């Protein structure tokens, strides 16, 4: 049995019970404010005081702020400048302060009493530390029995203050962990969303890309998609900077490309529209290097425009490579500039675009990978599927010695694959090389939409210098092709679209008519013998009779059917 100077008895069991309760409450609380309140309540109960408050150091402001206050009047939120008042002195001098009569202490911060109306007689204040770092102080006011604080009170407050300091430090750590976990989850989510912006790998397409961000999110991107006439639109870009703001600009640029790329069939024009958009709306200092292009697997013809991005390369196995310097600045710097366009015909070659994260890969301290290194690595994987070859490059870079500084992104078009999937038709290849896309339109595969297609086609025919009879032939051929699609490709009850793309050739017009129906076995389509007078089967005959070329361009399974028709002006 212990007895304090007030003659009150506190059993050791009482103290142990309170101490145990205190630790239990501390352990179960993972929130700083709740912990502070519990600590103060327990201390006050143990010391039997009229009021108490707990101050924490506000590191940003450099003063002490009252985070909990219990008693007749709350001073929660009260700020005490560092070193001021009894509480400030306790913290800055790192010692317990016991003041029997505050009216005789020059350091007493009387503001609190003045505003609260509470009369402070005596104060006991203990500093709280974690390691060597002061985090605040706990103070109690006026023993309930009117006696001054004794030695035992001092010891108990010091012990409780230390325990509270540890609990507060734990709660702060827990808060930080929760916040870190939240940020990590958000980054993971952003990374996932960003990955979903990249096109899915399609082994049937002669184009594939790969992207490995150095952090959770990437400032690099690539995209590609097939246009209605089989031409593939593609791009690869690199946003300046890394992290979340780069990733957001990347998402915006990628979305703009995907949207504009479906209608604008000129890479240079597309880049200048993107450039204006980014100049108008992007915060200063951020820019995007980007290469955009169109590749026709049927002809190997590739058009591209480069806004400040690394030169792409065209390579053949073990035969070196050629590259094409960019001649325009990145997007987002100068508003009204033109972007030049380049045209290459791939001859079973590979076209490769990459971000500087790839070429600037370093071995040790000196050597950079460079385009030569990429070319060399590709020589090693000849004959493998395209996606695997890109993975091989990443694998090599991840193995010993190489160090990444940046996001790694590669986009490859393998024209030799296109040669295997798309049968080349020599006459078409030569026609396409001098073709100019005029317009495209999509109609539902329904009979009452056919008449809507003819006037615009007739106008294109007239503009291309065809006679009235020839214009009528064009209308007839396109309608017959569309009717075949409605009746045979889609068939009874099936719905779908028909697209018509019209290209101007030097000496005529080229029409590409596509459906998205299951593949039609072209071998089974032949015009019927004309000496047999019966309805049906005439359409294909009409098409062949009025057009100079009519060829089905084989598409990968699931991509529909594509008929290419060419009509040339008569030479006189």
């Amino acid at each position, binding site marked *: 049995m212990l007895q304090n100077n007030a003659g009150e008895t506190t059993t050791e069991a009482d103290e142990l019970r309170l101490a145990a309760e205190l630790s239990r409450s501390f352990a179960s609380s993972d929130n700083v404010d709740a912990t502070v309140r519990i600590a103060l309540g327990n201390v006050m109960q143990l010391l039997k005081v009229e009021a108490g408050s707990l101050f924490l150091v506000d590191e940003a402001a450099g003063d002490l702020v009252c985070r909990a206050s219990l008693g007749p009047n709350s001073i929660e939120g009260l700020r005490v400048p560092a070193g001021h008042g009894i509480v400030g002195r306790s913290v800055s001098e790192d010692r317990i302060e016991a003041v029997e009569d505050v009216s005789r202490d020059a350091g007493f911060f009387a503001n609190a009493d003045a505003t609260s109306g509470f009369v402070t007689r005596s104060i006991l204040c203990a500093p709280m530390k974690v390691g060597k770092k002061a985090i605040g102080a706990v103070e109690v006011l006026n023993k309930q029995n009117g006696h001054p604080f004794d030695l035992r009170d001092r010891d108990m407050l010091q012990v409780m203050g230390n325990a509270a300091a540890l609990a507060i430090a734990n709660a702060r750590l827990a808060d930080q962990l929760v916040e870190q976990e939240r940020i990590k989850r958000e980054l993971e989510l952003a990374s996932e969303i960003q990955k979903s912006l990249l096109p899915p790998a399609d082994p049937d397409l002669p184009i594939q890309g790969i992207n490995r961000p150095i952090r959770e999110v990437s400032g690099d991107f690539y995209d590609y998609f097939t246009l209605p006439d089989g031409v593939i639109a593609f791009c690869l870009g690199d946003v300046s900077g890394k992290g979340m703001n780069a990733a957001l600009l990347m998402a915006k640029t990628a979305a703009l490309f995907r949207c504009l790329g479906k209608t604008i069939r000129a890479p240079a024009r597309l880049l200048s529209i993107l450039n204006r958009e980014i100049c108008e709306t992007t915060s200063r200092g951020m820019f995007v290097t980007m290469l955009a292009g169109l590749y026709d697997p049927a002809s190997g013809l590739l058009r591209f425009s480069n806004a400040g991005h690394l030169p792409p390369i065209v390579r053949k196995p073990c035969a070196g490579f050629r590259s094409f310097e960019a001649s325009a600045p990145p997007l987002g710097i100068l508003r009204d500039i033109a972007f030049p366009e380049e045209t290459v015909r791939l001859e079973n070659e590979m076209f490769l675009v990459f971000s500087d994260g790839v070429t600037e890969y370093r071995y040790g301290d000196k050597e950079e990978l460079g385009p030569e290194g990429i070319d060399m690595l590709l020589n090693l994987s000849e004959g493998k599927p395209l996606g695997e070859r890109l993975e091989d490059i990443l694998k090599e870079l991840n193995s010993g010695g190489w160090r990444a500084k940046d996001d790694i992104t590669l986009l490859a078009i393998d024209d030799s694959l296109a040669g295997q999937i798309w049968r080349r038709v020599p006459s078409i290849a030569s026609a396409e090389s001098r073709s100019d896309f005029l317009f495209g339109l999509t109609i539902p595969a329904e*009979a*009452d939409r*056919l*008449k809507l297609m*003819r006037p615009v086609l007739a106008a294109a025919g007239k503009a291309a210098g065809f006679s009235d*009879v020839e214009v*009528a*032939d064009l*209308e*007839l051929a396109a*309608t*017959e092709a569309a*009717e075949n699609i*409605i*009746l045979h490709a889609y068939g009874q009850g099936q719905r779908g679209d028909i697209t018509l793309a019209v290209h101007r050739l030097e000496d005529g017009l080229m029409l590409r008519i596509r459906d998205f129906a299951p593949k039609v076995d072209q071998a089974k389509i032949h015009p019927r013998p*004309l*000496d047999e*007078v*019966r*309805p*049906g089967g*005439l*359409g294909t*005959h*009409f098409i062949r*009779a*009025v057009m100079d070329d009519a060829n089905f361009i084989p598409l990968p399974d699931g991509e529909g059917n594509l008929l290419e028709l060419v009509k040339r002006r008569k030479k006189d």
Partner: protein
Amino acid sequence: MAVAGITESEGRLILALEGEIDLEQAGAVRRALLDALKKGRTVLVDLSQVTYIDSSGIASLVEALQVAKKQKSELALVAVSQRVRRVLELARLDKVFQIHPDLAAATAAGAGSPGN
């Protein structure tokens, strides 16, 4: 509608077609032709107002001609525009159908005799 009307003159049914005859209108044209062949022994198809025809319209005409032959009726085409003639030629049907330059010529030619 591609079927402008049907009139009777001196025992012949005159079926007037108009506009664009493609897959959308071919069904209506076919029904009108077969209907006319049920009603009259001689059917003249006035094509003067037809601005477009393709294989689906031609198919209806060919089917009607076959029905006519089977039931020993007459079916002749009248006032074939250059555009429609081009399609008939492409199908090598310009010699198979009786074709009259206009209704007066069709009347003068009389039933049963070839138009050209």
